[in-house]
């Protein structure tokens, strides 16, 4: 039973990060190959606090979120201000992730590439509580005027700007919110596994996050979150097939683009299905 609980908890932690990326890629329409970096920043910021200074997890978790949110400004301000093409932005944020990995591997406070052993703080209460709060806050946020503005930007950035939307500000806001959610996921992950290493937050993890968002459906919250759960839980249950997980992700991305670009629940929510409403 312990094992099953563990798997479900990991899946829930992953769901928070995917929720974050869904806000950015699914709703604002920017493609990121570096969101694992924000998960990493959340993990390391909170981990360093609890490890070196015995900060209670109650404070370390929001600190991890804040660190991730603030660090997103470092990459977001220059690149979003310059209105980079979407593929240029993707590679720029990938570069940010790489630069971060190099830093984490060479700093002494993070114990370098060997990794940091922290205490296990995040029990099911913390994880489920954070997940529920994140889902609620994100739902509210996307229902508010910001959600409408994000979707307008995704649909047509030029028309959005000519509707009076400050593209830079709104895209940056979307990035900060999404990075903050990833930071929460990272802080929970660090104190669940009780061990973090720079290699846990690289392109591979970013690709997994992205695969969940795209498979779950652009413009949907429930789709990516459901897929994130399946994507984490399924391979854990089928340990022997673990090796084939990544090739399967890759193949899935190609197949989705060819046969079902809208993903599982593109532009819809789970609740819409019950109401029989499509949008």
């Amino acid at each position, binding site marked *: 039973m312990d094992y099953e609980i563990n798997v479900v908890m990991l899946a829930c932690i992953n769901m928070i990060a995917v929720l974050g990326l869904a806000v950015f890629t699914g709703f604002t329409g920017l493609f990121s190959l570096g969101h694992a970096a924000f998960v990493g920043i959340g993990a390391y910021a909170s981990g360093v606090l609890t490890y070196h200074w015995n900060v209670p997890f109650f404070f370390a978790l929001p600190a991890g979120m804040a660190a991730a949110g603030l660090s997103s400004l470092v990459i977001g301000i*220059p690149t979003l201000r310059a209105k980079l093409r979407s593929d240029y932005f993707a590679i720029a944020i990938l*570069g940010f992730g790489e630069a971060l990995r190099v830093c984490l591997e060479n700093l002494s406070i993070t114990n370098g590439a060997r990794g940091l052993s922290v205490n296990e703080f995040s029990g099911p209460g913390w994880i489920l509580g954070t997940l529920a709060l994140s889902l609620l806050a994100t739902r509210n946020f996307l229902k508010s005027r910001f959600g409408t503005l994000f979707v307008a930007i995704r649909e047509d950035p030029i028309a959005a700007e000519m509707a009076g939307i400050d593209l830079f500000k709104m895209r940056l806001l979307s990035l900060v919110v999404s990075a903050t959610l990833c930071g929460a996921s990272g802080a929970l992950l660090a104190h669940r596994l009780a061990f973090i290493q720079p290699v846990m937050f690289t392109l591979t993890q970013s690709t997994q996050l992205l695969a969940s968002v795209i498979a779950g459906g652009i413009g949907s919250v429930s789709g990516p979150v459901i897929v994130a759960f399946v994507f984490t839980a399924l391979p854990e249950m089928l340990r022997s097939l673990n090796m084939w997980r990544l090739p399967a992700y890759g193949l899935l991305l190609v197949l989705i683009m060819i046969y079902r670009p809208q993903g599982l629940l593109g532009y819809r929510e789970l609740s819409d299905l019950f109401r029989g409403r499509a949008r």
Partner: protein
Amino acid sequence: MFLQTLVTGLSIGGIYSLMAVGYSLIFSILSFSNFAHGAVIMLGAYMGLALATQLHWGLGLVVSGSVVGAGLLSVFNERVAYSVLRRRRAPSLFLMISAMGCSVFLENMVYATIGSRFYAFPEFFKRKVVDVWGSSLSLLDLFAFTVSIGAIFALHLFITRTKTGIAIRAGVNDMTMCSLMGVNTDRLISIVFFLAGAFAGVAGVFLGIKYFVYPTMGWVTNKAYIAAVIGGLGSLPGALVGGLILGVLETLVSTYLSSVLRDVFSFTMLIALLIWLPNGLMGRDTEEKV
């Protein structure tokens, strides 16, 4: 010391250029960044490795085999993963995601089947060193540099002098118009992907000889992508210049500052350049038509 650094930088830059050409070619005709290019380079290296170690072919045959193999792989990649999207006129973001998927798939298939072992090519160059103006240069570096520049020059001639090349340039300007004029665009795109793959094959073999062959060696193509962006995506001279500039600057940084900072430097440079010169040094204006 400085001269040696410069020449080493140029030789690395030559390989970057060779890889950057592939990104630029495909970008110029389909306007998307083919992130699967790195995986094609990696597979090109494995093909070369198989020819060299299993069949004991010489360098010339190994390179030719890898050129053909990677070229065909690249065409196959386009047929399977992009052609449907292209005909549906899907947004370039979709093509990019599909390319990303191919890259993840191919890389991890190699992991799952061949494994993560590092393989070395047989010694084609016996670590020979040549003396140029008082600095010692490895024969391999010189050879790689010469071949890279030669291949890019040959490509330039092909694009500017032959009928097919001119058709490609027409396609770069206006794909729809080109197909209305009776050009078989599917064939044209296959040729472009073959060329990109062929360059990937050469680059893969050189990378494999210089370093090792392993599943994630395609990672270095992120540098090539940066080089292509520096030069201006879609521009062949841009790919050459971008590759050389990046190679030299990077080598200077790792020699005089710190080798740890090298990759951080490349990405920072990319971001800075994109902000000041979003179209690169020689790229076309990509401002969206309103």
